């Protein structure tokens, strides 16, 4: 039974309307080539990462010194066996990029999943209940926001040691605040609407109001935040791995490849260039898609574009 459908229509979550909107969005996406290309690129990256064990030509952790520092196949000295060349331990660069993408995306998704969920819930609570709950949570958000992410992550590494899961812990720890702020902002504008008043009047339990009614309505702008945050986390992981405190060898990550290949930048440019391009393109694509989503979901924004 759906009591909401008898209430003020403009503010209510209606599946049929949503489907129509989705159709219109897809048509607009087709028109906006840049966003379309970005989305396709992201799908490609995700596919490569997921299918890395099947698609990757070599084992990314194994190499023989004899094959060390071979250039990409189109440069003299390169071979078709190692399309993008090999690194200083003789490992295939392309395979390491494919597997590295796996790691970067995993870190990105896991961090945002956890910090996003946590932050959104806290933001909902903070915005809905207000008063001292709001003050306390927002003060914590402010204090933690003053603490820049890199320093927090490095501190975590100092006490936990470097590694993939410790890095995820560090990035999650410092990633929830932005979601909380966004969610809270959205809830504040929703809180005084007739719909919410009405659901409260009919005796809906608070939990149901928050998660069954408010959340579905505000999820759209939050999705933008999630996507942009994934981009930011991927960048953060690359930085940490570059500095040597993120993913550890023999695992590969794009940032780690750049960090390891640094000393040979004058002799083997491919060690640094390709991973860097991978990072830049992925983050760029995520940003473009995130922006497109934001514009899509906010009609006011659309007109300004």
């Amino acid at each position, binding site marked *: 039974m759906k009591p909401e459908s008898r209430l003020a229509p403009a503010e209510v979550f209606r599946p049929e309307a949503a489907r129509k909107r989705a159709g219109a969005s897809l048509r607009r996406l087709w028109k906006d080539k840049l966003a379309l290309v970005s989305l396709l690129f992201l799908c490609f990256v995700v596919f490569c990462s997921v299918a890395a064990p099947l698609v990757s030509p070599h084992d990314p952790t194994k190499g023989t010194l004899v094959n060390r520092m071979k250039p990409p196949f189109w440069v003299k000295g390169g071979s078709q066996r190692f399309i993008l060349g090999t690194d200083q331990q003789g490992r295939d660069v392309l395979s390491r990029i494919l597997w590295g993408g796996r790691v970067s995306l995993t870190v990105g998704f896991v961090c945002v999943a956890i910090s996003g969920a946590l932050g959104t819930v806290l933001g909902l609570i903070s915005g809905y209940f207000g008063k001292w709950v709001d003050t306390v949570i927002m003060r914590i958000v402010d204090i933690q926001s003053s603490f820049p992410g890199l320093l927090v992550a490095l*501190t975590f590494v100092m006490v936990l040691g470097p590694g993939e899961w410790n890095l995820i812990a560090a990035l999650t720890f410092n990633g929830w605040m932005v979601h909380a702020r966004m969610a809270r902002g959205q809830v504040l504008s929703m809180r005084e609407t007739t719909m919410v008043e009405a659901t409260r009047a009919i005796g809906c339990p608070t939990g149901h109001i928050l998660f069954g009614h408010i959340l579905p309505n505000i999820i759209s702008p939050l999705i933008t935040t999630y996507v942009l945050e994934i981009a930011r986390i991927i960048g953060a992981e690359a930085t940490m791995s570059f500095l040597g405190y993120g993913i550890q060898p023999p695992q590969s990550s794009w940032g780690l490849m750049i960090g390891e290949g640094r000393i040979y930048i004058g002799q083997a440019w491919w060690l640094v260039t390709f991973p860097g391009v991978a990072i830049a393109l992925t983050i760029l694509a995520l940003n473009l898609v995130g922006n497109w989503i934001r514009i899509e979901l906010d009609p006011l924004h659309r007109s*300004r574009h």
Partner: protein
Amino acid sequence: MFRYVVLRLGYCVLVIVGVSLLVFVITHLIGSPVDIMLPLQATDEERAQLEHQLGLDRPLIYQLMDFASGLVRLDFGLSWWQKEPALGIVLERMPATFQLVVLSFIVAAVVSVPLGILAAYHPGSTLDRVLTAGALTGICVPTFWVGLMLVTVFAVGLGWFYTSGYGTIRHLILPTLSLAIVPAGRIAQIMRFSMLDQLNQQYVTTARAKGLDERTVIFKHALKNAAPAVITTVGVDLGRMLAGISSPVEHVFGWPGFGTLILDTIQHQDFPLLQACVFVVAIIVTVINLVTDLSYGLFDPRIKY
């Protein structure tokens, strides 16, 4: 006005204390630093000895009291690595970072503010599209990778600049450019967005109708109103940059500043030095936030404290 400043200062102190406590909590409750410092097969007596040596085996409350009393006196103890007062070491390294970061922001602002205004003035034009793309790319590429690419081309390849080190203008150029890219992109983006917003407002049409020349309209009116958003961005970014985000670039260029100090601190697992770093960072960030907030009064006469 005065009351506001005093209140804000009080709040700043709260934040600084909160952040320092946060670090204390992280470093003392999460993970065991002793385990990180010792190899797998170290005996238990060694572990106990190291813990005792570092003062980590005393009851937590004593450690907390020691820390709190030290905090009040601005005494963080001696750095384990350098055997000198920790705060002094941090302050000694700040000027180099300060110089680099401030210069980067000035370069970034000088380039991106005019371009942002220009793009807002001709929305949808080729210039606008190129600028938006450029700004977005600037934000997305990892700064350390940009630094490495610049080194490859200009220092190794063309030999125009030094690849690392500190002391002359030739040392300063490449790191400044690398660091300036992200702020430039962000400032351009927000400047454009803000100006566009303003130029579409009623008062602009009115001003033009009144017969005011374009220059007055743009600079005396629209820009002043668009400024707060840009200032917030600059403030936030500047704070974060001084607080450690400059580390990767400093690392690439061997710049002897605060960023490399943080990395060394982590490498040497120097707790007192870390606390001192965090404290200084907290101060910088809160002061910048305060200055940013107060500066709104400059641009918007309606804001009264």
